[in-house]
């Protein structure tokens, strides 16, 4: 069974530029999460989708971050414009509906300079 795929693995951008991350969840997983993990901290939930609907985006900085999940499968997370404090690893995870265990991708390491 293929795992959660994320791209790119690494990205370096200048502040005020825009960036987008892509995630392909495990086939059949209805729930998709985007987490931000700052160095030395645990993953923090940014947004949760159930199929293609948003369940929770209370921690998403909506003035600069946006996310969508087309047709309830792939998802993209965008930052525009980026700030220095956005430097982090962005993790995508998916799970079966009503299942507690989430499966994580390898993450995208973003460096904003």
């Amino acid at each position: 069974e293929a795992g959660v795929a994320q791209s790119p693995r690494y990205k370096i951008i200048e502040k005020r530029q825009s960036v987008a991350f892509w995630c392909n969840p495990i086939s059949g997983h209805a729930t998709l999460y985007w987490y931000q993990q700052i160095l030395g901290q645990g993953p923090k939930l940014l947004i949760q989708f159930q199929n293609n609907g948003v369940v929770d985006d209370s921690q998403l900085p909506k003035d600069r971050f946006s996310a969508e999940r087309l047709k309830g499968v792939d998802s993209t997370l965008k930052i525009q414009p980026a700030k220095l404090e956005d430097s982090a690893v962005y993790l995508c995870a998916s799970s079966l509906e009503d299942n507690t265990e989430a499966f994580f991708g390898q993450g995208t390491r973003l460096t904003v300079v």
Partner: protein
Amino acid sequence: DQQVKQNSPSLSVQEGRISILNCDYTNSMFDYFLWYKKYPAEGPTFLISISSIKDKNEDGRFTVFLNKSAKHLSLHIVPSQPGDSAVYFCAPYNAGKSTFGDGTTLTVKP
């Protein structure tokens, strides 16, 4: 307001000995408690979980204990192996999602 606290950022143990990782939480609505393990440059992977109606769950060398009255859980690894060296996250679960602690880096020395 940090709902999940792992107060020990790091732990070092000798191979073959017991590793005990601790986690405290404040939200009484959590109904499952998960532990994830993370190696460098990889995403977290699920390790073991416990329901809020139980006080112990065992899976091979890994045992999780839950003390609901104290809002405390712990992960025991016996015996510890060098391959267990990783970051361990406590991740209580409620309403379809987990809240992660900041992790404990475990180093098991040969």
